[in-house]
């Protein structure tokens, strides 16, 4: 995608999501908010990252070697938006909703886009591993919780979200496994460093 197109999309997506009918629709259900609205906002942030000029990225680079700082920002921001009380707040309070529309693109999507290419394979692996584990844990938790965790949503909505999270985790796991087992060599190990050495391999 061209930089300008990415920028355009990054600007349009949150506006579209903030349009009252769509916003109301997506926030009416816990599943839609967590699995559609929030991921789309994060994608908007990623697109924003793509649209930034390279000089900006280079200026940040010394502060974000190996994507470490970005990873920390993303981790904490995601943790904040995984709290049931944040989801509630976003529905009830316009201020919290505004915070959501700002922080998810800027503190999750953007740092993810700018840090991912800098991260080592191992760090990416840890991030994906933790993402998988979190999907399974939260899905499990939402399925078994006898109480509603969000005041704004019903128990059945919460359980449906639990099922979706488990399915999302399984799908992600299968995708990763497929890519690792049969994926193209370049995509699998490519970006994360210099090409492999066969040094030391006996003839």
């Amino acid at each position, binding site marked *: 995608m061209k930089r300008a197109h990415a920028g355009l999309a990054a600007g349009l997506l949150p506006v579209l999501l903030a349009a009252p009918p769509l916003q109301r629709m997506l926030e009416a259900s816990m599943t839609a908010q967590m699995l559609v609205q929030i991921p789309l906002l994060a994608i908007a942030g990623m697109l924003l990252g793509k649209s930034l000029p390279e000089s900006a990225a280079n200026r940040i680079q010394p502060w974000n070697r190996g994507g470490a700082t970005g990873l920390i920002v993303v981790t904490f921001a995601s943790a904040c938006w995984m709290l049931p009380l944040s989801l509630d707040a976003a529905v009830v309070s316009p201020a919290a909703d505004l915070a959501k529309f700002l922080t998810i693109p800027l503190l999750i999507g953007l740092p993810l886009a700018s840090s991912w290419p800098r991260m080592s394979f191992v760090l990416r692996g*840890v991030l994906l591993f933790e993402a998988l584990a979190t999907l399974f844990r939260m899905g499990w938790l939402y399925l*078994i919780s006898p109480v509603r965790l969000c005041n704004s949503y019903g128990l059945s909505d919460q359980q449906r979200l639990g099922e979706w999270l488990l399915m999302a985790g399984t799908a992600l796991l299968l995708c990763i496994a497929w890519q690792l087992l049969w994926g193209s060599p370049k995509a*699998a190990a490519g970006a994360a460093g210099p090409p492999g050495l066969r040094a030391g391999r006996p003839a």
Partner: protein
Amino acid sequence: MSALYPQTEALSSRERAVLNLYAISALAVFLLLMLFGLAMRAAQGRWINISPQVFYQLMTAHGAGMVGTVGLASSAIMWFFLRKYVRLSTAMFVANYLLFLLGAVLILAAVFIGGFGGAWTFLYPLPVHTMGIWSINAAAVFMLGYLVIGVGFLLFYLDAMLAVMRVYGNLGRALGWQWLFGGTIDKSHPTTVVASTMVIIVNTLGILGGAVVLVMCLVNAYVPRFPLDALLVKNLIYFFGHVFVNCSIYMAVIGVYELLPRYSGRPWGVSRPFLWAWAASTVMVLIVYPHHLMMDYVMPHWMLVTGQIISYTSGLPVFLVTAYGALTNVYRSGMRWRMPAMLIVLSMFGWAAGIVPAIVDGTIAVNVVMHNTMWVPGHFHFYLLLGVLPMVLAFLYHVAGGSSRSLETAGDRLSLAVYLIAGLAFVGMFLAGGRASEPRRYAVHFAEWLPYDRAASIAAALVIAAMLLFAIRISGALLKAGSGEKGSGEVPAHLPG
């Protein structure tokens, strides 16, 4: 002698230091935990008096510690041989060690300071149903220790995954799956890469299961209003535990594939049955765990049937590919019977023979009268004590021995004989106890079981004596080899002699 010690396996002084760290820590911990085991057997035999509370603390530490330490020692074997074919990061290997150390400290603190005695399997809800003997915090620290160790192994596997993919493109090609159904097999494709890749895949999944269930147990410990499903937790714990223990064996067996051909002088490379065996094991090790749950009658019965049948089939690669292959390799080869070679053959015997009582117990009808009797520790001590540990010892004897024959004394051979005979007697007493319906994990035994316990105690003491000699000999030789090279930087450890 350079055939025994190829240049490609030379250790830099830094690598040697790290390997020494792994080897000497593992040997020391093995000895300590064996002493815990001896204490338990002697207490059951009423030769020493320890309170049940201390007994179960020792049992928890022995189980968790042995599983973890076998994993640690085996990962050193995988690292040592895999780094010949792909470029592994020493830093990640060190990180694994440091995280293991941290995790071990947490576990030991939970057990011996916090009093945690919930067994290494931490079956929900026992860790949080403490009956006032340990605190929720102690249980949490114990589980946190597991998590930290899991992260360490994850780092090591991710690094190895990247390294393997850089050379072979993807994991499927590293496993040789392109040759499963046809094509000309590249005979130089390393067996080490096949086994390592299998372990990387399988144990990452096992650790994922562990990471999910451990955090859920931690959440439940502090927010009890989220009640977990005891059966689901049990499934995940046994999945995680089974995969982890098996992967330790698969990592250790790499040493057999690498070293045995050098002592027999006959090549042992990949073949189509070999690749099929490892491909099948990759799948089977993930789905066989329900054989731990056969007495959970509410389990879906198809899963229990799967457990029984996969228990049978997972024996086939062991018998017909690895053990049979090893014997073929040894048969009329003009074998050089040095310590590593003897230990390797012992390990193959221990693994293959130890699987027999395991398979028998994997039959539901037998499990009904054998589950959680001494039969169970009988079979896993068989292939851990006489299978995996000899693999580890063989590797260390090989590396530490170097080109000198200093580790080939009559004392070493005598110790090996003692280890074999006492080891057989030790596991035999477990199996005999199982036959006599002696329950496992009883701090206090009926009088009729005492003969087994006492015979086992004597055997355990002899095993420990032999192990002590091995540990001293290996550690001494490793340290000597290290100090001999001080300042010489990249000089290979094993000079051709």
